[in-house]
């Protein structure tokens, strides 16, 4: 019945290249559009979690380095600098739409600590129930595992699993192939830009739907080919 409806929970995974220009600076216009669309989705009742990346790239730009130094320790330092810049940018953009955001930094080994997973899940539930959009990133500054420069999809997957998300959205630069990570049970949608993100979510769930009562005709795809045929 009505009262058991759960709100649709969407993990939106942002690739750094889609938000940051070639000069290493944040593309304000793209960031703004993203904030607008996500705020809208949030306002329409969906729960949104953003998994971002780009801290290291931004850190490198902030310090005016010609390129990203290869050593892990340098990358960690850059991550510490860039993350502050990144979250500030998100805040500024979302602020325009009166949408409050929160910063969540996790290390990729979080899945190894059941207590922490439990706490993290509770924190997300709390933030989402307050209509706040968590912006998640790897805590690269203190990470002891290898640092993923480009690919935050594994993190998005982990967060989707921890938070019981219904769907993962990948906003990607490329229209083409994106390797499916095996073991992924979450339906994935790939979108090229913010407008198609909105359109596809609306198409999937209906414009004003806030709860996950999926229309019978929707099939949840397991492969990229099936996603493209949506």
């Amino acid at each position, binding site marked *: 019945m009505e009262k058991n409806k759960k709100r649709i929970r969407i993990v939106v995974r942002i690739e750094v290249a889609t938000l940051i220009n070639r000069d290493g600076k944040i593309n304000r216009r793209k960031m703004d559009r993203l904030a607008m669309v996500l705020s809208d989705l949030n306002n329409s009742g969906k729960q949104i979690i953003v998994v971002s990346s780009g801290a290291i790239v931004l850190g490198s730009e*902030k310090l005016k380095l010609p390129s990203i130094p290869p050593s892990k320790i340098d990358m*960690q330092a850059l991550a*510490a600098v860039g993350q502050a810049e990144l979250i500030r940018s998100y805040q500024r953009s979302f602020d325009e739409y009166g949408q*409050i955001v*929160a910063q969540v930094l996790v290390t990729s080994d979080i899945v190894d600590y059941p207590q922490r997973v439990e*706490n993290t899940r509770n*924190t997300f539930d709390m933030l989402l129930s*307050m209509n706040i959009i968590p912006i998640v990133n790897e805590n690269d500054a*203190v990470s002891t595992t290898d640092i993923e420069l480009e690919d935050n999809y594994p993190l998005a997957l982990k967060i989707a699993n921890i938070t019981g998300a219904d769907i993962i959205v990948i906003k990607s630069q490329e229209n083409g192939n994106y390797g499916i990570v095996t073991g992924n049970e979450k339906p994935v949608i790939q979108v090229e830009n913010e407008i198609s993100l909105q359109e596809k979510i609306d198409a999937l769930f209906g414009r004003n739907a806030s709860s996950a009562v999926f229309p019978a005709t929707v099939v949840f795809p397991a492969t990229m080919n099936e996603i493209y045929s949506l």
Partner: protein
Amino acid sequence: MKFRENLRTKKRIVIKIGTSSLSFAGGRINFHRIEKLARVLSLLRKNGSQVLLVTSGAIAVGAARIGMTERPRELARKQALAAIGQAELIKIYQKFFEENNQLVAQVLLTKDVVTIPELNRNARRTLARLLKMELIPIINENDTIATNEIEFGDNDTLSAIVACLVEADLLIILSDIDGLYSADPRTDPSAEIIHTVKEITPKLEKLASGAGSSFSTGGMVTKISAAKICQQAGVDCVIASGYDPAIIFEVLEGKKVGTHFIAGQTSSVFNLFI
């Protein structure tokens, strides 16, 4: 006293600022205070010191941001507020530091940094690198994903641990109290600040916890415990009022402000494995 003069030579300094010093009663940020702090620390850094800032206030700032007036009890709520408030805080710090041409970096730590050797090593190296790059690391506990058995106590202990991690010369704890008093200053007119502490005795600890005294919010207890960690690790520690961050200059000039806990004459390594 000679001990205070030694503070003039301190080059690697950790400053800890408490919630009450950086925000107003409701948790709203005191911009003027942060602006001043940023100015003071940037100047210090520019003059060749290595500076680290341990900040508190994430939960209070988060609460104010969403209009919550009471401090939450529930862990999940605290963690959620910390996630909101930390983003807000770091944004503000960045702004004011950049106005002083000083770049900053955000480092969120968990208690594991003390107990897990790999994390310990990792944190040391990252912080050392940030200092070398002439940045000011702004450090806080990663409240959002911390587990609830661990309580750093308004970051006093965290600041002492950071001081050990980077082998600092000095830790300055800025708070809403002028220093360690000989008695409750609110009820005893003869109460005075104890300006120098060579050794933290059980008697002193009892004084700080002020059994029965209402001025002890528990804040002094954690400060004493932080000072103890410092003394044992050979780090000088000064507890002073955060009302005017320029007091940092006074401390470094060797002026008799606040309470100075003199570093122990220990040759022990800065290893903290509890």
